[in-house]
């Protein structure tokens, strides 16, 4: 049995999802010879530390009831710097202005030679090359499948599964909120504002939806794809972006009459990184509805490969994190 000492930094939807899947998959992981022992958990104000392994079930309950994970006043960053462990699971909020605490956490982890798995796209969209270099210098494994498309495998698909292929284009829907709003506008023939309000009510959209509906979230994911899959050195200033706020129900209807859906499509290839609403033929694999994500990877040897799945959600995102964790330590 290989024991991997883990810290979970950030205990919101995704961090809690990771705790749940580690509890649920304990036997499954043991059969693989893996024991992920969580020795520290931190949220924005508190932490819990136990060298013998934190009891994840009671941390989940405490977070639920009291809003905090523990009583220790040590920060996530201090945990990374001072507690002896192998792997940091970084799930703090995305910040694309400064990189936020996530960027500091990642750099600190690599400085101390720890491996890191994250769902936090901010630091990667801003400082991709710097982070990859820091991980290399620290001898750290660094994986971030969850940053692009949640449960839908894109990065590992393009990098590992399709190894040997040259990827010429990636095109898809990388934001579930926008897909939900556009799908509902089409179904109800209702204006943007109304379906945004519905999405907010159902928890599919944030109170401030700018980041999603203006295409910035999609742009960040494309930057990560561009860097990771196409070997570029891009940041989000390199992306041309048009969001969905100007789409009208009339336009959706006209499109439908011509056999098209309108989707917010992100596209990366050697010549451009672009986010904009596009016409997708209704019977095309990219025309998925609801809040689904989808990506079509164009390859030289195998043609187009299309994957679709849930782009967000607590357990779904945790699933991508878990698969990254396993892929680092298996064998």
């Amino acid at each position, binding site marked *: 049995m290989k024991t991997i000492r883990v810290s979970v930094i950030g205990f919101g939807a995704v961090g809690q999802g990771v705790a749940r899947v580690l509890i649920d998959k304990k036997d499954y992981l043991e059969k693989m010879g893996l024991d992920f022992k969580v020795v520290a958990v931190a949220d924005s104000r508190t932490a819990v530390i136990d060298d013998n392994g934190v009891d994840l079930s009671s941390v989940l309950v405490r977070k639920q009831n009291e809003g905090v994970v523990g009583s220790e006043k040590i920060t996530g960053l201090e945990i990374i710097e001072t507690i002896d462990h192998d792997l940091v699971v970084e799930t703090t909020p995305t910040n694309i202005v400064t990189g936020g605490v996530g960027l500091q956490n990642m750099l600190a982890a690599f400085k101390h030679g720890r491996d890191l798995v994250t769902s936090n796209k901010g630091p990667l969209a801003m400082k991709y090359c710097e982070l990859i270099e820091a991980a290399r210098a620290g001898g750290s494994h660094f994986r971030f499948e969850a940053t692009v498309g949640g449960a839908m495998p894109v990065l590992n698909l393009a990098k590992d599964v399709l190894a040997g292929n040259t990827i010429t284009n990636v095109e898809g829907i990388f934001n579930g909120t926008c897909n939900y709003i556009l799908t509902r506008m089409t179904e109800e023939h209702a204006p943007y504002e109304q379906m945004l309000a519905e999405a907010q009510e159902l928890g599919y959209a944030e109170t401030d939806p700018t980041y999603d509906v203006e295409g910035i979230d999609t742009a960040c994911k494309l930057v990560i794809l561009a860097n990771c899959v196409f070997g570029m050195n891009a940041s989000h200033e390199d992306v041309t972006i*048009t969001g969905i706020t100007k789409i*009208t129900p009339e336009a959706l209807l*006209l*499109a439908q009459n011509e056999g098209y859906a*309108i989707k917010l499509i992100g596209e990366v290839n050697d010549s451009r990184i672009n986010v904009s609403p*596009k*016409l997708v033929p209704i019977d*095309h694999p990219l025309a998925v509805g609801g809040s689904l994500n989808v990506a079509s990877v164009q390859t030289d040897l195998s043609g*187009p490969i299309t994957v679709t799945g849930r782009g967000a959600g607590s357990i779904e995102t945790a699933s991508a994190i878990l698969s990254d964790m396993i892929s680092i330590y298996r064998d």
Partner: protein
Amino acid sequence: MRVSMDIELKDIPGQLLLALRPVSELKGNLISVVHHHEKRTPRGSIPVQLVFEIKPDKLNDIVSSLEESGIDIVRIDEKRFFEHGAVLLIGHIVHTDIQDTIDTIDKTGYAEVVDLNLSMPKINMASSASLKIDAISKEHMESAIALLREIAKKKDLLVIEPIKSIGVA
């Protein structure tokens, strides 16, 4: 592009082969040959209709090659618009002179707006339009859409194009 061509052959053996050779030599794709052997023109020659696809810049070479072989070309009809595309516009489409937008595309000579559907919800609100565009080739379609993008930028209209993986067809 697709070309339909009426030619006249002398009534001696080997003439049809002679007429078809330049099409294949210049990498054209022969689509149909209608050979009216029983018919004769007043000049005593045999009328033949050819339909083939060819790169636009190769058409002149075919014509000269046929003329060199002494074959009479009676009529050339370029079925020019071979690519069909759709584009959506959103914004103040009418206020910003839709006719001018269409004319700019039509004036290119390589693309044409062949259909327009306009939807105007209320006065002062953004309207939406779907345009069907025909163009000579994929490349010309791309140029036409790029041109439309430029016009739209000036007129503050949103252009919604088809996704890449279906091309612009």
